[in-house]
């Protein structure tokens, strides 16, 4: 528990102390509950001004420690093991306790033209702390508690091109298309020497496609705005024959500029994901629907810098078969614009 408590302050120091900056991710939900916050940060969805960089450094933490069967709470969650050595799925292999997700990510976007921005998302530290009971048998019905089978490492890099489809005084519509590259490790071993659960790996090992849309409407310009966004990640099979379910994200929210340097927001974030598949067979406990309520705060100490923090509160969660679901999540970060001109306000 000590390391669990230390992880946020340590990561905070990393993020704040480095003085660099941030972005967004929506990595996979797993049979072991790997997940990260999915939301609209407000610093990452729009376009960068032409010739300018927006750098963004963020840290996300999600505690996945509540057992569910479908939408109902259960005390004990058994999940299968994907046995890559023997190419089979072992049902009810181990009992889940918790998966603690930590993700530090650096994002950089560049305004190639006034209407076209390229964004690079680098999840440079993707950690999953996995607590579970394994080795369950007739002689050891409770199994043995393990906390050593988590993983950490560099995740999968995304490159996204965003295009201005509509910009008027009150409307902004941005479309994005991109790819997720298999830069993260996906063959790490567990404490028994076997290939670990794919959902615990820092990377998926697959080359995936991304499509997104972001719309913002200024109800009261520079004071109250509404936004809607959606994205779809189309996943492909990795070299071990594992296919993560596609990810559909939908977000809607309001942002209110309460003071010139302070913005408060509230949003609803929904995610849908079908079962993962291994060699054509559905993996039990993967996929489901998750809806979160996400209050947030953004501080702008100067025109080129933003600090932000969001909390995620689950309001509806349904898992396929049974699995753990998040009890809460948090994201905070800093974003900085480089080379801001002295033009208009």
């Amino acid at each position, binding site marked *: 528990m000590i390391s669990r408590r230390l992880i946020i302050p340590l990561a905070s120091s990393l993020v704040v102390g480095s003085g660099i900056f941030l972005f967004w991710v929506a990595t996979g939900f797993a049979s072991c509950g790997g997940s990260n916050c999915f939301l609209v940060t407000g610093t990452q969805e729009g376009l960068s001004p032409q010739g300018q960089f927006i750098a963004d450094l963020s840290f996300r933490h999600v505690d996945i420690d509540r057992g569910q069967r479908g939408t109902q709470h259960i005390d004990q969650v058994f999940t299968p093991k994907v046995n890559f050595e023997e190419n089979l799925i072992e049902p009810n292999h181990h009992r889940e306790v918790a998966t603690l997700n930590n993700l530090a990510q650096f994002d950089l976007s560049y305004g190639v033209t006034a209407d076209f921005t390229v964004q690079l998302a680098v999840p440079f530290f993707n950690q999953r702390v996995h607590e579970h009971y394994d080795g369950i048998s007739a002689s050891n019905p409770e199994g043995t508690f393990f906390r050593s089978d988590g993983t950490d490492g560099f995740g999968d890099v995304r490159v996204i091109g965003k295009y201005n*489809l509509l910009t008027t005084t009150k409307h902004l519509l941005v479309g994005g298309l991109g790819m997720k590259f298999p830069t993260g490790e996906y063959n790490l071993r567990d404490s028994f020497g076997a290939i670990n659960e794919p959902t615990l790996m820092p990377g998926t090992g697959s080359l995936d496609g991304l499509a997104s849309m972001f719309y913002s409407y200024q109800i009261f310009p520079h004071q109250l705005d509404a936004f809607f966004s959606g994205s779809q990640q189309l996943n492909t099979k990795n070299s071990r024959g594992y296919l993560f379910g596609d990810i559909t994200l939908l977000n809607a929210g309001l942002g209110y500029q309460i003071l010139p340097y302070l913005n408060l927001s509230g949003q609803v974030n929904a995610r849908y994901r079908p079962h993962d598949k291994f060699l054509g067979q559905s993996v039990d406990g993967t996929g489901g629907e998750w809806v979160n309520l996400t209050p947030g705060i953004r501080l702008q100490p100067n025109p080129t810098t933003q600090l932000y923090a969001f909390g995620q509160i689950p309001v509806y969660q349904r898992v396929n078969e049974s699995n753990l679901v998040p009890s809460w999540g948090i994201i905070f970060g800093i974003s900085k614009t480089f080379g801001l001109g002295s033009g208009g306000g």
Partner: protein
Amino acid sequence: MQQTRLQVLLILTGICFCAIVWSGLAGRPDPIDSGQIAPTFTLPNLTGTKVNFEQALGKVSLVMFWASWCHPCMKEMPEVQATFKKYKQQGFQVLAVNFGESNTTAKKIVNRFELTFPVLMDRRGDVAADYRVLGLPLSFFVDSKGVVRERVFGKIMTKEDLDKRVKHYLSEV
């Protein structure tokens, strides 16, 4: 199957971007510019009285969009006030349209710069949308017939700049 899906997505991605870029579809409406009829509007001033743009017809008008967070706008305010004071009697009118702020905020600016020209409150930005405002400062010189003669965007106008323009447009009346 999965590789096929990815190939389809990649091809679609390429086609979409090429189509958008080549067709110049980027969604920025053409700005209101010289030669066009200035969009008319009715907005409340700081006391709540409705002011109709058509009341300004017959005069040379400067329709300027501003906000307190726009630093160039703040630099321009005293210059505009001085020009207004100088040419008011000769038929020069300023309609300073505040972009999206509260009366309290606008009043502070009025008091700070001792503005005497009408400040109009475009709380929801609808008039700004009609004038296709995408950034501030943005001003339009409108002649006595309601035709936009010049659009000035992203530039702080000095007293000399204003003087030259106002003199020129007044001479045409």
